[in-house]
């Protein structure tokens, strides 16, 4: 069984979030804590207004997880596998208007 955490990044002027319902908002400069049970999924919104490049500082409690950041058009912008259960940084361009997704499995 996998975790699926989907972070939808809404830049200025973006439209609805799609089929999945959001369950939270990730704000710039506000460290946010999540705890997931096996099989849980989560959808977060982010308003990345004003940025051309975004960076997420991520701390995880478990290794072996994989991230992928997808553009509004579905293109993979960035990805990483968590080798160690600690901090990592992941940046990606966010100049395009629309819905960005971050998949964690």
């Amino acid at each position, binding site marked *: 069984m996998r975790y699926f955490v989907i972070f939808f990044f809404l830049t200025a002027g973006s439209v609805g979030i799609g089929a999945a319902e959001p369950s939270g908002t990730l704000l710039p400069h506000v460290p946010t*804590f999540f*705890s*997931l049970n096996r099989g849980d999924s989560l959808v977060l919104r982010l308003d990345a207004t004003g940025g*051309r490049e975004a960076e997420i*500082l991520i701390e995880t*409690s478990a290794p072996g997880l994989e991230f992928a950041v997808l553009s509004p058009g579905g293109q993979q912008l960035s990805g990483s596998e968590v*080798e160690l259960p600690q901090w990592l940084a992941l940046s990606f361009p966010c100049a395009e208007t629309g819905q960005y997704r971050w998949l964690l499995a």
Partner: protein
Amino acid sequence: MRSAADDADGASFRLELQTFSAASVKGLREAEAAFAAARRSLARRRKAPVRASIARFRQAGKAWAAVGDRGGELLALAGESQAWLELSDYPAALAALERARMFCARRAFFRAWVANLQAQLYLEREDSKSAGRYAEEAIRQSSALSDEWLKADSLADRAESEYWRFASAENVDIEKAVRLSTSCSCHGDTGAGSPFAVPGSSRTNVR
């Protein structure tokens, strides 16, 4: 995709988003690559790679500083502190954390997080009084933030400091820490959220 979490009951995540101008791309990429390399070197836990990780953490910190990424700088300093700790250079480890605190002025979470690291460092130095003081600070701040993961870590640190001082509250704190770490899927490892918690290791002090 294979997930190590397949073997676990759950997982915890902490995220902070930052946005930058297009001119920051090169610096961010350099910092992230150096930071990842530093973490890998540090995880090898042998003297030469741990020493090499310090230069990498500093490279990451410098690149993050150049683009105004204070959160990144803070993480690089915390990593450097961990490397010094691995080398048993406590003054250098403490100095790095003191510098990290300078970046916490308007960052409530990181202020609590660094206080927790300071508590852990003092525990390693067997200075339970100072450890208890920083653990108190981390507990107070993490409670205000409703960050159960950090609070569980901090409670475990305070419990350990109480253990060394023969304080009666030790068991209560341990029970709270275990309860919190279970509820927030920290795998019951109250040190898992800390950069001072090296995979495969744990503090096993003998009084």
